[in-house]
């Protein structure tokens, strides 16, 4: 019995002891936290830094606001009782107990002594907060944490990061974690760890990694390699090679996109000309001014929306601008055709001079109405912003919108020519005017409508171009030579020729630009076209008909 009792008592004691021990451990942890918090008020900076690091290692997220307050010079001791408090606000400070988080009500700066922080302290705070936040549920905070932890000097950062990386799901944070981890491991003295770091980086082919790895392959001024281990050097070189390939591909893709983007701008500017010049054979030097009129119509519509339409519909102004610009430029085009150009058919050089005169007058007219300075056109909300298609390849929405829009306009026009009665009549008049007339087609009316169509499309191009450039009375001048080049290069009278011409010239231009500079690139293209016309005087896609004989 006694033995039983003894055994029971021992067991009870043991249980008691375990419970006691657990209790003691928990208080010890609480104490470690309070101690570390109290350590923040130490007089010396070294002791403060030690306390900060201890807080970081404890992994208690309650420390984050305290540490941030310290970095912001908002950690105080209250003079009355020596309590460590954080405060917020300028003159009337609201106090919170640093250790417990208990609200302590307002105070003034006279009641408090500030705990000073210097930059070394702030760095230590950053690292500690990073450690604490690496497990934060908010990915943005984890990302920031991964980046600040590069500065952490404590030896257990690396395992901590590894651990975090293993748990991490969000790709951006993973990338940042890998990069930080590699940065820390690469400076490690252990060659094995450096090699692992490079291996870890092998799937991240970004410019940052390139900057990180490049020093490993360089030589020091005394001729020795910065990285003593040849195996690591080889791995680094191999990684650099792959990064360079990837960067080159990215650049290629970016150039291609920019080329297509420029090509679609050229395409928009030239489609209208493909009708007036290509189909009708009219050299319309005022074509650029039709684009300019379209852009100014956009300005007017935008202004009207600002004044009369509730702000939430403002983004729609661009949609309204498209038919408005088509009508304005188209009407001016019809007036031009009926008033002047129809008297000059068959005399292309006179047409050229007369339309040049019209272009001067339209420019001056717009200058008189709207003034010479550039007009501002704001992109609607749904067109601002960008998408990152590949690392390092950012595509802005307005560029994408213009590409899509250009293709839509081209397709719409092709359908109009192919499937509508008007398109049929237009093609008939182009191919054989007198026969078309004998068949009862009002050729004069078709001429006017065709010219109006070409001008209207130029106006629509102006809406698009107002989104990527300045709107000024000289807007059209910048496009006129380019548009003619596109049409002549692509083949007069062929819509596919215009598409091919615009895209070729756009892409060609963008690929030349990095090597030759913007201006020289343009010059080379002009020279290229002059030489090209030697071989194919009628362009890439030649067409038979009235235009081909001109």
């Amino acid at each position: 019995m006694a033995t039983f009792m003894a055994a029971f008592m021992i067991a009870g004691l043991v249980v008691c002891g375990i419970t006691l021990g657990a209790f003691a451990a928990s208080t010890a942890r609480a104490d470690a936290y309070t101690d570390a918090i109290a350590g923040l008020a130490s007089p010396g900076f070294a002791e403060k830094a030690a306390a900060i690091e201890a807080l970081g290692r404890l992994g208690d997220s309650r420390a984050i606001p305290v540490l941030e307050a310290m970095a912001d010079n908002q950690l105080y001791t209250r003079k009355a009782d020596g309590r460590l408090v954080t405060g917020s606000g300028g003159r009337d400070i609201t106090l919170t107990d640093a250790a417990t988080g208990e609200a302590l009500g307002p105070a003034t700066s006279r009641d408090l002594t500030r705990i000073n922080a210097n930059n070394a302290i702030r760095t230590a705070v950053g690292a500690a907060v990073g450690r604490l936040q690496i497990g934060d549920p908010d990915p943005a905070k984890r990302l920031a944490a991964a980046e600040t932890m590069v500065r952490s000097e404590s030896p257990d950062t690396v395992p901590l990061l590894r651990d975090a990386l293993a748990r991490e799901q969000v790709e951006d944070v993973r990338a940042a974690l890998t990069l930080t981890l590699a940065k820390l491991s690469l400076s490690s003295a252990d060659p094995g760890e450096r090699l692992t770091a490079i291996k870890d980086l092998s799937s991240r082919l970004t410019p940052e990694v390139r900057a990180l790895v490049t020093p490993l392959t360089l030589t020091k001024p005394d001729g020795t390699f910065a990285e003593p281990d040849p195996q690591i050097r080889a791995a680094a070189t191999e990684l650099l090679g792959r990064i360079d390939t990837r960067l080159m591909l990215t650049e290629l893709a970016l150039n291609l996109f920019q080329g297509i983007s420029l090509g679609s701008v050229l395409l928009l500017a030239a489609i209208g000309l493909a009708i007036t010049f290509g189909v009708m054979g009219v050299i319309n030097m005022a074509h650029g001014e039709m684009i300019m009129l379209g852009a100014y119509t956009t300005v007017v519509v935008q202004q009207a929306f600002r004044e009369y339409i509730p702000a939430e519909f403002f983004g729609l102004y661009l949609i309204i601008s498209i038919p408005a610009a088509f009508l304005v430029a188209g009407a001016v085009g019809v007036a031009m055709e009926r008033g002047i150009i129809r008297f000059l058919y068959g005399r292309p050089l006179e047409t050229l001079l007369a339309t040049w005169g019209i272009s001067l007058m339209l420019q001056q007219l717009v200058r008189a109405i709207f003034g010479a300075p550039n007009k501002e056109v704001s992109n609607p909300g749904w067109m601002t912003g960008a998408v990152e298609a590949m690392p390092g390849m950012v595509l802005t929405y307005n560029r994408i919108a213009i590409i899509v829009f250009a293709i839509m306009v081209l397709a719409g026009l092709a359908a109009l020519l192919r499937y509508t009665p008007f398109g049929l009549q237009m093609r008939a008049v182009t191919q054989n005017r007198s026969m078309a007339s004998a068949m009862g087609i009002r050729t004069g009316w078709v001429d006017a409508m065709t010219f109006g169509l070409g001008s209207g499309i130029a106006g629509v191009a102006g809406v698009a171009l107002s989104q990527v450039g300045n709107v000024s009375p000289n807007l059209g001048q910048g496009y006129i030579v380019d548009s003619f080049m596109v049409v002549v290069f692509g083949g007069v009278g062929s819509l596919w020729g215009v598409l091919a011409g615009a895209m070729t010239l756009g892409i060609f231009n963008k690929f030349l630009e990095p090597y030759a500079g913007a201006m020289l690139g343009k010059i080379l293209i002009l020279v290229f076209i002059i030489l090209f016309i030697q071989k194919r005087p009628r362009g890439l896609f030649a067409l038979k008909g009235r235009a081909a004989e001109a």
Partner: protein
Amino acid sequence: MLLMSRLASLESRRGWQVFLILLVLTIVLVPVLNLTLPPESPFHVPTYMLSLLGKYLCFALLALSLDLIWGYAGALSLGHGAFFALGGYCMGMYLMRQIGTRGVYGNPDLPDFMVFLNWTELPWYWWGFDQFWFAALMVMAVPALLAYVLGWLAFRSRITGVYFSIITQAMVFALMLAFFRNEMGFGGNNGLTDFKEILGFNIQAQGTRIGLYVASAVVLALGYLISRFIVTSKLGRVLMAIRDAESRVRFLGYSVTNAKLFVFTVSAILAGIAGALYVPQVGIINPSEMSPGNSIEIAVWVAVGGRGTLFGAIIGAFTVNGAKSFFTGAAPEFWLFFLGALFIVCTLFLPQGIVGFAAQMRARIARKATPAPEEVGNAASKHRA
């Protein structure tokens, strides 16, 4: 003797009289009125007016050169501003070298803008431009070479009409962009300016200005006679035939390419000389002279005066530029309206320009009774230019 009679045949008797009277008026009367009369006299020609007239004379030579290729060979060059400006740049380079140590940086060899760009030595294409004879040669050779190469490329592949116009326009546009680049070594945006002296004479002095004015007048007269010589020769007949029916001339066995190439090159040389005389009178040459708009404006001078008549080009250059000077002084905002309207009115209502209109009026008065039949000039204008 043969040459004399050929010379005499350039113009009719009446034509020679008018030519000589006008020559004497411009060369003698204007400078005399400038030098001898006191400024308050109503007949006094102020020096700025003299310089302005000198400028017009250069423009007239430029218009003449365009008329030679457009009015007679039917090829409208929209790139004549390039030849004009190249001639001007050659002269400008000579004038830059004459500045010597008087520039802001005082470098004896390098023009200021090169010192500014930290260049250490003169680029090879500036060599020789300190000699007037070399510069004068280049004034003709550079535009001629460009015209020859471009013309050879264009005419050989039978690029005619509007396509030729667009190609020449692209050429002048490309050149303008090229000259805007600082690395080209022609002063970039600012061009060449701040000239001090020409052939040892102070470029600002009244005497030099009169000299340049007289030189421009004499060169214009010579240019007119040379052009007259070309268009009254057998080659001139071939050219006009090319203008009116190119394929037929080709099938008759004439070398259309060579004829056009020759006249295009001569035309470019005349334009280059016009530019070379223009630059010392205005004191600056920059790439904006090569803007496509300027080159098209030359075509309107010719169209206003009447293309296919050499003196029409001269009349046109004086009329349009006179109007430009008037408008830019009196109502600058209306100048472009006026110029634009001029383009339209000329092409719609005056296809033969002032000269053609005058001839028509004369003919109408002469045969008041009967309705005038189709004029020869009219028929030519109906043809696709």
